[in-house]
């Protein structure tokens, strides 16, 4: 079951420059920051209510985020819904015939994640995430 918006992904040219607005002006707490090699990004999660804003800065020219930045510039990139079972959610999505990017869940900043194809949702890139257990 999809319970809530886990985060909204925003592509930026520079994470440090984006902190000036999202952290310092809006006052959002940086909950986590890490390099996610297989997505080619340096990413940060900033807490807003029960959800987060994810800022994504490309660290090389290869990933989807770098291509997005080059083609469209900075801006809204994806919506992530939280689930307590990403494998079951992905299987149910696949069974409905919805086009996917990831056929199996993989590790992301938010937890175990997968992406659906934007073609399946009127141009909106949608991610599912099952958060890691945190202490």
């Amino acid at each position, binding site marked *: 079951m999809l319970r*809530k918006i886990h985060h909204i992904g*925003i592509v930026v040219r520079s994470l440090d420059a984006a902190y000036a607005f999202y952290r310092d*002006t809006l006052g959002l707490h940086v909950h986590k920051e890490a390099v996610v090699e297989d997505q080619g990004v340096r990413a940060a999660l900033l807490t807003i209510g029960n959800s987060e804003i994810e800022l994504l800065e490309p660290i090389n020219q290869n990933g989807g985020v770098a291509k997005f930045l080059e083609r469209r510039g900075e801006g809204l990139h994806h919506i992530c819904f939280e689930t307590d079972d990403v494998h079951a959610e992905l299987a149910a999505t696949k069974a409905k015939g919805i086009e996917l990017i990831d056929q199996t869940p993989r590790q992301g900043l938010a937890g175990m994640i997968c992406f659906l194809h934007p073609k399946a949702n009127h141009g909106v890139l949608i991610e599912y995430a099952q958060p890691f257990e945190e202490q």
Partner: protein
Amino acid sequence: MAVVNRIDHIAIAVKDLDAALERFTANFDFPVSGLGDVPGLNIRRAFLTIGDAALELFQPTTGSNPATKFLAERGEGMYILSLEVDDLHAASETLAQRGIKLNIQNVPNGRSLGFISPKVTHGVLLQLVERPKA
């Protein structure tokens, strides 16, 4: 202290609201509300509730809506990120102290919305909304 409380909604611009609503409902099964025209904004829209937030699917009904240009140039997709504040005017003052201008616009039903320039927000059309207190 954060200026904003939570994600209120994400507005998604679509070319055909009925088709998009059918697709999103089939894919995600989120409850639908508020389906209809908003003449003052020149849109037809519906909300899909997810947790304490919503997706707003909207279709411009006249060429004068700014999303018409967005749809023509970039196609369907996420258009506005709307965040909730306790008090729009207090938020405006706090932002002004931090050197950021909040553009407050009056919208139908006697309500106001705040917008921050995409130049400041790194390309995001960011809206601040104050909800009636329970």
